[in-house]
């Protein structure tokens, strides 16, 4: 294998393995929140977008309704739309048939977008994308299955499993706090949630916290400085 290709594959494989461990934590937490092994695996196979899966099971574990769980998770999944748009401008298949593009769409998630967009040429981008897409899908689903089977035999409270959810969210959140705008959206989202918790049904305050994204409409400091 040529060195450039080897570098890309090595980088994506490191991420894939890490995500597999992440998958174990999803499996364990999802079963602890009340899903069975098959349901947990179905989420990882068909929904295949980690943050939404964690969000849905976190709301269900708290006693929220299926629609409340769906609402927050669906809004989180909307970011995949933005990734899809970005990737459609960057990822050029040699023979872009519709079935191939639809198949590729299933694998458009945080990691594949980040790793593919980090490459500068067309071919390496395709390699990074498919290597993340397929490798991560396999690792995530195997991890989920393993975790779900483990989760069934341990008591969530004793092992502090209830803290696995917020700990995972902390890790995921960290990447979004690099900009001032991200920090403001996070603080606002948390505040909106806290204020609404006692008033609205379980899970709905999570949905409502999404209104914090409207601060994105605020013109940013850099742009103001430029004009």
């Amino acid at each position: 294998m040529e060195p450039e290709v080897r570098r890309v594959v090595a980088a994506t494989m490191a991420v894939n393995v890490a995500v597999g461990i992440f998958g174990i934590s999803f499996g364990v937490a999802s079963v602890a929140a009340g899903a069975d092994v098959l349901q947990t695996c179905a989420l990882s196979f068909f929904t295949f977008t980690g943050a939404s899966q964690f969000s849905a099971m976190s709301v269900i574990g708290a006693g929220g309704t299926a629609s409340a769980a769906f609402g927050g998770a669906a809004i989180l999944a909307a970011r995949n739309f933005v990734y899809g748009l970005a990737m459609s401008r960057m990822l050029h298949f040699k023979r872009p048939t519709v079935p191939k593009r639809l198949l590729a769409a299933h694998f458009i998630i945080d990691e594949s977008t980040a790793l593919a967009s980090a490459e500068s040429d067309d071919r390496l981008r395709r390699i990074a994308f498919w290597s993340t897409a397929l490798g991560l899908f396999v690792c995530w689903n195997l991890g989920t299955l393993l975790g779900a089977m483990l989760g069934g035999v341990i008591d969530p409270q004793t092992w502090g499993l209830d803290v696995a959810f917020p700990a995972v969210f902390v890790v995921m959140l960290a990447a979004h706090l690099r900009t001032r705008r991200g920090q403001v959206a996070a603080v606002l989202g948390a505040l909106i949630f806290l204020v609404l918790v006692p008033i609205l049904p379980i899970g709905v305050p999570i949905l409502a916290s999404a209104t914090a994204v409207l601060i994105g409409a605020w013109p940013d400091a850099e742009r103001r400085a430029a004009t």
Partner: protein
Amino acid sequence: MTDARLWWMIAALSATAFGFKAIGFVGLGGRRLPPVVERCLALIPAALLAALVVKDTVTIGQGIVLDERIAGVAVAILATWRKLPFLVVIVAAMATTAAIRYGLAG
């Protein structure tokens, strides 16, 4: 929650997630949204994940409950800030909460 309801949720969420991915990648292929819309959409994870952290740390149902989960999440934040590996963050958080719980119960 009945089993059937959970299955419906899984089906609906899977269809929605795929819909978002496919509309962005295949449907609108190559087009750009107004910058304001792209900026707002990019902030979704920041807002929702922060709310989810708060939810799983200090609430039970509709009540605010302060307990040993806070210590675990504090450890997770510290470990993330120190850029420790993912697995270390999760295990340290769980161990902290479990240890305090065990100490309080024992």
